[in-house]
């Protein structure tokens, strides 16, 4: 029965827990066991603590047993990217410099997740300080892509995407600065949403680039992502950049999936040279699916998007160079060279030298340079102008269409080690996702098939105007419904039931696990 729990969607699990057909402890136990079974291979998690998770689950069960009405995801386990501060629970941000640090407080998103009765099942691996597109920059371990463990699961949120795709968690939390939610989702056939900037609180999320960072939901289905979106989003006075406005009706949009009359703009500049043929093919097929459901497809030009990557790699490192200054060995984390002889500056220098990885150092150096007196206008200043132009491209486009679309990434998952020696090649992974971070609008990646040439997942990116996050879910749900009808199930179901996915141990011999069949509590305990 455990396979059925693991294969079920978060909304199904939530419903069955609410009906008390399943307990939070049973569900949590099933996922903890799955982690034990497969995570030595996948390496999605940095920290798992059965007692911690089961304690949370017991509290939720007690509340539900007492008749308390919790949200639709109460009792459902969730993987948490290790960038979110969790009180008393190790939070490393993928870096040696924070190894062993126990935050004394919870991120706002963590408080919301807990209040909604979700059960945190572990802290997920990530590129160090969220810098990377492959999770290879983690100071602790390299995570495999469940579709092919020798390939990358995307980054920086590769631990979250891999946990979803290997059925170690039905939901995950991510953060997206230049594509760290959407690119991992694309290469693992999962759903990843970057809400409108300011839609989710950044309080307690270890900052990479403050003006770009945005926490968001990661899931295996569009509805699950929407349910989590509703839990974590909303105004937070602790984050000055948080928007004081109602959360868009994302769950309604995910349930409707109505795209009739919706005008969809294909971004001309995000395609062509440099895009894998299989990526383009699946993208075009997805457009046909949307068109068949009544959407209108037009081509739109966003002429400044091509400067996005260059401007991003000035603004982001500039903020990085300042945000990461606080890791100075004085108050928490690693301390190197405190021998009573070294000066305080020596200790800071030695600690930062030992505690930060190469990519982090590279970005601190670039950012320090870009902000330096005499260079500021040429670099940081110009990049901000480009940022403005990109936002204006979006504004102009959204007068013609309701949403913009593109492939989420130019290629499918590459092999581990393939781009580690070539930072520029690595940076290209975020070509399509960066514009939405620069402009602050909502954006998401949805699975749209497997590339014929390598059989690996392709992501379909949808971009919506600021605070029109619901449109992402409308399009995503239409896509999911249309594509899964032709596939006979989700892509992850195909992986789970294939020989390649046999190591996951979640075969059910049926394409879609039945909903109505009750799971015996005793069966669940056998796991």
């Amino acid at each position, binding site marked *: 029965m455990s396979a059925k729990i693991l294969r079920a969607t978060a909304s199904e699990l939530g419903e069955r827990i609410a009906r008390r057909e399943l307990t939070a402890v049973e569900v949590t136990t099933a996922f903890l066991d799955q982690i034990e079974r497969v995570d030595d291979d996948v390496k999605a998690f940095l920290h798992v603590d059965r007692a911690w998770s089961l304690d949370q689950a017991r509290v939720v069960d007690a509340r539900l047993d007492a008749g308390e009405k919790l949200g639709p995801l109460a009792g459902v386990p969730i993987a948490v990217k290790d960038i979110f501060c969790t009180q008393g629970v190790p939070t490393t941000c993928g870096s040696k410099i924070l190894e062993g640090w126990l*935050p004394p407080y919870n991120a706002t998103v963590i408080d919301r997740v807990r209040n909604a009765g979700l059960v945190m099942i572990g802290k997920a691996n990530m590129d160090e300080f969220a810098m990377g597109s492959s999770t290879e920059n983690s100071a602790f371990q390299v995570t495999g892509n469940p579709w092919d463990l020798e390939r990358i699961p995307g980054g920086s949120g590769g631990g979250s995407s891999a946990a979803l795709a290997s059925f170690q968690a039905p939901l995950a939390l991510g953060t997206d600065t230049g594509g760290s939610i959407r690119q991992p989702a694309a290469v693992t056939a999962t759903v990843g949403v970057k809400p409108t900037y300011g839609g989710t609180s950044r309080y*307690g999320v270890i*900052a990479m680039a403050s003006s770009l960072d945005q926490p968001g939901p990661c899931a295996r289905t569009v509805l699950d992502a929407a349910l989590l979106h509703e839990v974590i989003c909303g105004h937070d006075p602790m*984050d000055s950049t948080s928007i004081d406005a109602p959360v868009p009706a994302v769950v309604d949009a995910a349930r409707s999936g109505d795209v009739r009359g919706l005008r969809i703009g294909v971004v001309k500049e995000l395609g062509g040279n440099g895009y894998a043929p299989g990526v383009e093919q699946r993208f075009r097929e997805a457009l046909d699916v949307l068109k068949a459901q009544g959407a209108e497809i037009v081509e739109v030009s966003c002429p400044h998007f091509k400067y996005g990557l260059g401007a991003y790699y000035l603004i982001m490192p500039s903020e990085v160079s*300042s945000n990461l200054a*606080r890791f100075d060995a*004085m108050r928490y984390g690693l301390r190197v060279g405190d021998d009573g002889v070294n000066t305080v500056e020596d200790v800071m220098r030695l600690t930062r030298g030992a505690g930060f990885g190469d990519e982090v150092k590279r970005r601190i150096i670039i950012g320090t340079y870009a902000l330096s*007196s005499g260079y500021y206008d040429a670099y940081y200043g110009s990049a901000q102008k480009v940022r403005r132009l990109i936002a204006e491209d979006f504004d102009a486009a959204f007068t013609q269409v309701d949403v913009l679309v593109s492939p989420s990434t130019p290629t499918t998952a590459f092999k581990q080690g393939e781009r580690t020696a070539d930072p520029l090649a690595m940076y290209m992974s975020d070509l399509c996702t960066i514009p939405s971070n620069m402009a602050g609008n909502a954006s998401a990646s949805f699975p749209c098939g497997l590339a014929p040439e390598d059989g690996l997942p392709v992501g379909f990116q949808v971009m919506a105007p600021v605070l029109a996050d619901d449109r992402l879910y409308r399009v995503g749900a239409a896509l999911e419904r249309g594509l899964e009808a032709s596939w006979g199930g989700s892509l992850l179901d195909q992986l789970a039931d294939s020989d390649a996915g046999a190591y996951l141990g979640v075969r059910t011999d049926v394409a879609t696990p039945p909903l109505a069949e009750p799971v015996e509590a005793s069966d669940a305990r056998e796991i």
Partner: protein
Amino acid sequence: MDELLDYDEAMALFDPVLGLEVHVELNTASKMFCGCANHFGAEPNSNTCPVCLGLPGALPAVNATAIESAIRIGLSLNCDIATWCRFARKNYFYPDMTKDFQTSQYDEPLCFEGHVDVEVDGRTFRIAVERAHMEEDAGKLVHAGASGRIHGADYSLVDYNRAGTPLIEIVTKPVRGTGSMAPQVAKAYVAALRDTMRALGVSDVKMEQGSLRCDANVSLMPKGSDVLGTRTETKNVNSLRSIEAALTYEIRRQAAILAGGGRVKQETRMWHEEGYTTAGRSKEEAEDYRYFPEPDLVPVAPSREWVEQLRSTLPENPAAKRVRLAAEWGMTEREFGDVLAADALDLIEATVAAGASPASARKWWLGELARVANAEGVELAAVGLTPAQVAEVQGLVDGGVVNDKLARQVIEGVLAGEGSPAEVVERRGLKVVSDDGALSAAVDAAIAADPDAAAKIRDGKVAAAGALIGSVMKAMRGQADAGRVRELILEKLS
């Protein structure tokens, strides 16, 4: 020791140019960017939270009261108030900075282009204010070991209670044309700022506690030149008197260097209360703070309606108020000058408001209470008697309940914590005896005891009454109205 040129000689050769940077700690209930108490003197690191400790993930949120105070300060300094401005990050590594950047303002200050008029010896100087901007304070380092400085310390401790305290930094434009009065003008300017902040109620403005801090920049131009010289910035100037003394010292030191053909080094100087400055951190290599707009905060855009509403709440300008009070109180220039010098203006104003006459209020605050404050080594305002209590004491005198001498005992009792003035009179039994029966008996006894004096008075030598008054007062243990005693003596011996 530095070589110094005689001040008059220095002034014959050079014109000083001043630049003053004043930091004012706001007395808001909470800190600039978090909800921690903004309180002086608490247990180290007790007023801290993830935000002011700069923990990973923590974010600032602006204290609206601090913005309001900043705008009111700006308006009081005749500044323009920005319609839109941002915070900026000033990046540098130091253990007292929890984030290793200071959240400050850079090229978009909230308040700019103002001025303050100060008067010195009857001359008015207009000090142009370049800007008044908001920023946060750093924590406090305590270095253990012989040196007392971070280098060579055995270890250092950091108290982050002060980290995140709201500060307003007020920067002047270069101040020229003050000539030999430069140090006095600087002192008068800081005093004017202090009075303004106090009138606004936005800060404790205690220089010795650091809630008002002044960095005094000065450079010298050869007479007749208009090329600015190299400046020094003197820190650790912790009183109004020190501002004047430190600038005088720096002017004499720089003049000696320049007159000897040397060049002044651009550097920070530390003022020592013993009367000299020493070299601090060299500023020859300008630090690159890599300022950029603070991405964690939204821009500050005060509406014009709000600014005008705040303008309407501004208190009377302290200089104008002085002119008004001097006239209302009918004091001579000298008497009023003493009031200002004693820092007693507000206290006397409050005492008058509580019912005392200006002359009597002045008498108590500049007399008995100044003596007590001096003996205790505290400021007049902290002497332990409120203006209302002073007015009450004077009321007892005016009502004939006590005389001046007894009133001093009343004050002593109030200071000793024996209760209100009326309670002290009651408990100590200090009431003047106005019962003529008792007084009359005491007078008769005194006359009988000193027939010589009585004879002299009968002969018209009225001055001899003093001896008899003295013995009556002694017999009455001071609790008699001396005037009435004198009347009785003269009556009986006429």
